[in-house]
């Protein structure tokens, strides 16, 4: 009978409803805690990017006006007065503390202020327009690359794969060593310029106005193909190599030998034992990468003149448009903190060993 008592140690005699209530209570608490942490990270990072530009001692408005004045060859009289009036307009004449409070207030409403270079357009306006393009392209490409790369890596790391697979995937992985911008230029030259199969640049044909028609959708997809390929090739290699390593690690685990000893079918061992376990670190990687896709691919978007956030960031830095730069940095912060928050909440569902604890 001692056998029986020992086995009953971890029992929790409770009905189904009790368990559900307990889990939802615990999970609710846990999610709230994680969300508060998310807010804290966003506040901390925002404060840092509020302080750093002010430590540089530069006056963005004055610099902008000076630049314009030089470019236009105009007299520099009245520049100070002009700068003052603009600073008043942007709230830069107020004491630091008031500026900080206003900044946080605006941030809480997701109001990122005005662009200096394209005044009176707001930063929200500029950033969110390009964010659509970037998310559309990068979101799709990242998830596609994750799926393809992880599958390729899983197969490559599987000792019972057909031998010829090696000869297909390995050259593919070599391709991924080519830098994205270089591949982008090669693709433009060969596919778009010499063969003329796909458009050279942009997010849609220059003469058209974005509308919700089928023709326009096809046009957008045609424009997205080359940038997507340029990015996807290197990303596939990244995911494949990580997954392959994890698969090889998994092969050494005792439960893999036991799966074979149980006489399971190869397909079940592959999916439910090897891939399922090797996938866990990949998912962490995916969440972190998804957090950074909002930054776009500055180089690739530049090469294709794709109207995404990378292109906007490039322009903003060139025109020292401080508020747009700050807006994009805030978007990046939100993206990474948001992805980490999601990962924290979802990971216990993937890996039962990660316990949701409240203490």
């Amino acid at each position: 009978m001692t056998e029986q008592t020992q086995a009953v140690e971890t029992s929790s005699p409770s009905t189904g409803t009790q368990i559900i209530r307990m889990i939802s209570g615990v999970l609710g608490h846990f999610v709230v805690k994680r969300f508060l942490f998310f807010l804290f990270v966003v506040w901390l990072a925002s404060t840092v990017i509020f302080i750093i530009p002010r430590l540089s001692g530069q006056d963005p408005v004055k610099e902008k006006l000076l630049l314009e004045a030089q470019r236009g060859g105009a007299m520099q009289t009245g520049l100070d007065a002009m700068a003052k009036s603009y600073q008043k307009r942007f709230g830069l004449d107020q004491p630091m503390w008031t500026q900080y409070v206003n900044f946080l207030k605006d941030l809480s409403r997701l109001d990122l202020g005005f662009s200096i270079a394209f005044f009176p357009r707001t930063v929200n306006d500029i950033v969110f327009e390009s964010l659509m393009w970037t998310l559309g392209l990068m979101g799709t490409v990242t998830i596609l690359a994750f799926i393809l790369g992880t599958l390729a890596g899983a197969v490559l790391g599987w000792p019972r794969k057909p031998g010829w697979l090696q000869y297909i995937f390995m050259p593919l992985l070599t391709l991924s060593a080519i830098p994205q911008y270089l591949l982008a230029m090669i693709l433009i030259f060969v596919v778009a310029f010499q063969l003329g199969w796909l458009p050279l640049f942009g997010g849609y044909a220059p003469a058209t106005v974005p509308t919700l028609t089928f023709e326009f959708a096809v046009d957008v997809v045609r424009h997205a193909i080359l940038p997507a390929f340029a990015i996807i090739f290197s990303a596939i290699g990244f995911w494949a190599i990580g997954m392959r390593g994890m698969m090889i690690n998994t092969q050494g685990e005792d439960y893999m030998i036991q799966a074979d000893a149980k006489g399971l079918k190869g397909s079940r061992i592959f999916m439910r034992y090897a891939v399922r376990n090797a996938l866990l670190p990949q998912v962490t990687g995916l969440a972190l990468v998804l957090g950074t896709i909002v930054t776009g691919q500055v180089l690739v978007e530049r090469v294709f003149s794709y109207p995404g956030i990378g292109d906007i960031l490039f322009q903003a830095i060139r025109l020292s448009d401080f508020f747009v730069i700050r807006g994009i940095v805030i978007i990046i912060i939100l993206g990474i903190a948001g992805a980490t928050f999601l990962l924290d909440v979802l990971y216990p569902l993937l890996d039962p060993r990660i316990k949701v604890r409240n203490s």
Partner: protein
Amino acid sequence: MSTEQAIQTYRTGARITDVDALVVDGFSVYYETDSGTVKACDDVTFTLKQGERFALVGESGSGKTTLAMGLMRLTRPPGHIAKGSATLNGRDLTTLTDEEMRRTRLSELALVPQGAMNSLNPVMRIERQIIDGILDHVEDDEKSPNKDELDEMVRDLLTRVGLRPGVARLFPHELSGGMKQRVAMAIGISLRPSLIVADEPTSALDVVVQRQIMQTLGRLQEGLDASIMLVGHDMGLVAQFADTIGVMYAGKLVEVGPVEEVFSDPKHPYTKLLIRSLPSLKEKREFLGIPGLPPQLIDLPVGCSFADRCPSVFAKCREVTPLTQDLGGRRETACHLYDGEAKS
């Protein structure tokens, strides 16, 4: 007391029948490496009767796990079965196709691994890990059992290994070492195999749990009328559990015999030293070891591989590799000391 009687006093339930369950003949597992062929398991021959408990002992690296894994055809490259046969219930396992071998595993030949370690998939509930073995052995023309039937099977199996049915819904990390070992046994017996290979099922468990596990394993074996091949290096545990003992040294089976007789009258010098090295409760004395180290298994010289450590070594040991000799009464040994006593 005759040999047959000696064996049967060890058991409470099923008896050893005269039917051959597993016939291993000249079974060899070699590893091809850059520096030569490693004969991890070389020319092993023995017979396991239906209902018999056979224990394989020997120090680390002697090839006992290699042999067990080789019989299940789970040897990983660069290892391979070099020669010999292993006939289970009339079928030679070494000649089966991979798919036939897959179907044989668990249904006729089940492994109970060191379950206290990581032999369970960490991201899968216990019930899933019991069920998937059952599902993958459903014949093509058979109907798969439905969910209720499977739940019932899982509940029954868990109860039989002394676990409460609620364990089915748990994940491996929520179980203690002893409970995991029980789950490993539940999986092992799920398709009523005729041979259970238990690879050190009690290592990493404390002695109280060890005893419970071995009792459960014995009870399950008697319930199924199966044979057991126990791999272990705990001589005390083997003495209590097994009917027959096989001693391995440097990849070779050097002595086989009924457990009580081998303990009271060991033949091979290695077995003698092994038994002498067991600490005794009756008298306090220095731990006795076996001087020297086992030889490298690459390019073994001609002669007995124990010669360098053997207290009774003589000239012939280094010139001729000893063959297994039948000493009568189910006793066999591979040693030149008994050259004159062979019965056949």
